């Protein structure tokens, strides 16, 4: 019995740690984004609350919690209330399958540094990333506002333009690793990460996850100078906060997926695995912020055009070429 209790306790500790780290990271990513964007625009960014503005996330949280939780009169009440949670929960759930370090030896047992090593981890990620758009679509629809509705519809049609390419960009990785399990995929990259073995797949996946994160240049669902705030126009207080936090958790998770699938996960010289994983994820988060500071928003039809006519054929071609190469090598 105590054996099982220790196992259970370790799992609970692991869950709690992941939960805390993810939420804190999401909150501080907001600050980091504001700071880095500001420096790119020759400003300072938030620097009033605490030293270097480090308490800004806390004051933002207090502000969001104390604001009125407004429900529009003609909104679909239950869907309106559930949608932000859907957006945040799907983002949090995705992290369950992501291995963030090599297995740890503790109390004479091996503790895998992943909440749940699913043998279909890749499919789990793809499934949850499709579910996440329900938060946006339902939130936009339930608000009963034309801007929110347009944002929700855009979110859906954006999903069908990039998701196919994203799925097909993962296929070569699965073919090379011969496994759907994310841990096995990381193990298979012990020598050479897949970014070097298959750069086209990496590029297609990178562009797709920028679209998946709904950020500039693909932030059509919340295009603020066309749609007010898109799908969360009618949301206020902590419900808006959930959408917001969900977006940044999603950022961390997409960075983790990119790390796991293409950048060799926790593999790296000298430093411990968890540190390497964090460095890679944070570097990708910086890249996302950098993209936001550099590129303008694409037009709606340009994204569809790009997704269907450029990314999808490229991804298909890449699958065929990779398959042929694998057959040839044997």
């Amino acid at each position, binding site marked *: 019995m105590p054996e099982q209790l220790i196992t259970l306790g370790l799992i609970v500790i692991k869950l709690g740690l992941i939960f805390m780290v993810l939420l804190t990271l999401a909150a501080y990513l907001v600050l980091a984004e504001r700071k880095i964007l500001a*420096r*790119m625009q*020759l*400003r*300072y960014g938030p620097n009033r609350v605490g030293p270097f503005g480090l308490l800004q996330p806390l004051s933002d949280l207090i502000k969001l919690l104390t604001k009125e939780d407004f429900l529009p009169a003609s909104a679909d009440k239950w869907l309106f209330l559930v949608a932000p949670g859907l957006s945040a929960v799907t983002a949090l759930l995705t992290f369950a399958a992501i291995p963030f370090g090599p297995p740890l030896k503790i109390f004479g047992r091996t503790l895998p540094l992943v909440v749940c090593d699913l043998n279909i981890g890749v499919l789990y990620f793809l499934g949850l990333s499709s579910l996440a758009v329900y938060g946006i679509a339902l939130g936009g629809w339930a608000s009963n506002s034309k801007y929110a509705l347009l944002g929700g519809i855009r979110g859906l049609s954006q999903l069908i333009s990039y998701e196919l390419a994203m799925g097909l960009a993962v296929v070569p990785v699965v073919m090379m690793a011969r496994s759907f399990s994310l841990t096995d995929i990381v193990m298979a990259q012990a020598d050479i990460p897949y970014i070097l073995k298959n750069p086209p797949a990496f590029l297609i996946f990178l562009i797709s996850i920028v679209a998946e994160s709904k950020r500039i240049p693909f932030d059509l669902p919340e295009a603020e100078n066309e749609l007010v705030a898109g799908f969360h126009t009618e949301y206020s207080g902590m419900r808006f906060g959930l959408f917001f936090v969900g977006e940044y958790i999603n950022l961390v998770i997409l960075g983790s997926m990119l790390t796991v699938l293409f950048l060799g996960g926790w593999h790296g010289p000298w430093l411990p695995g968890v540190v390497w994983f964090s460095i890679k994820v944070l570097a990708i988060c910086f890249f996302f912020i*950098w993209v936001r500071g*550099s*590129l303008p928003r694409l037009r709606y039809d340009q994204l569809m055009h790009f997704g269907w006519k450029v990314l999808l054929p490229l991804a298909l071609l890449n699958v065929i070429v990779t398959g042929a190469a694998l057959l040839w090598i044997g």
Partner: protein
Amino acid sequence: MHIWRDISGTLQPFWVTLRNMFRKPVTVQYPEQHREPPPRYRARLILTCDPDGEERCVACHLCSAACPVDCISMQATEAADGRRYAAWFRINFTRCIFCGLCTEACPTLAIQVTNDYELAGRDPLKLVYEKKDLLVDHCGQEPDYNFYRQAGIGVAAPRGGNQTESAPVDVKDLLP
């Protein structure tokens, strides 16, 4: 080839933003750092004195008539020597839009703008400035002008007694 132009057009902004990230921000950190506004900046209004140290304002109400938001009010009165002045003079800075039209209307250059822009406060009633708050003991931006020594009114000097004036014509000296 369009595609190369597109790709380079997509990559160039990254270099621009990265380069700017390591430059010094141009922001003036306001409460700690102050920027001196230009001398002709239009902010807080003052009532100036002439070079003799007397009040310039003659309470002609032209400023309050020119004011588009009606934030200037006063009561005119006259001293024993015939000099007009304002018994009370009030500018409501919660209304003032700092357009400077009052200073253009003023015939005696009494009301003038300064570049002191830090007027913000929590109590709106403290922004209603009375004459004692507005009156200063210097000439502002016009150090030489003295209305009573230019206008030919026999208050500060007898009629025609100023340097720029000739003595009044005695219209009766041509009479037979």
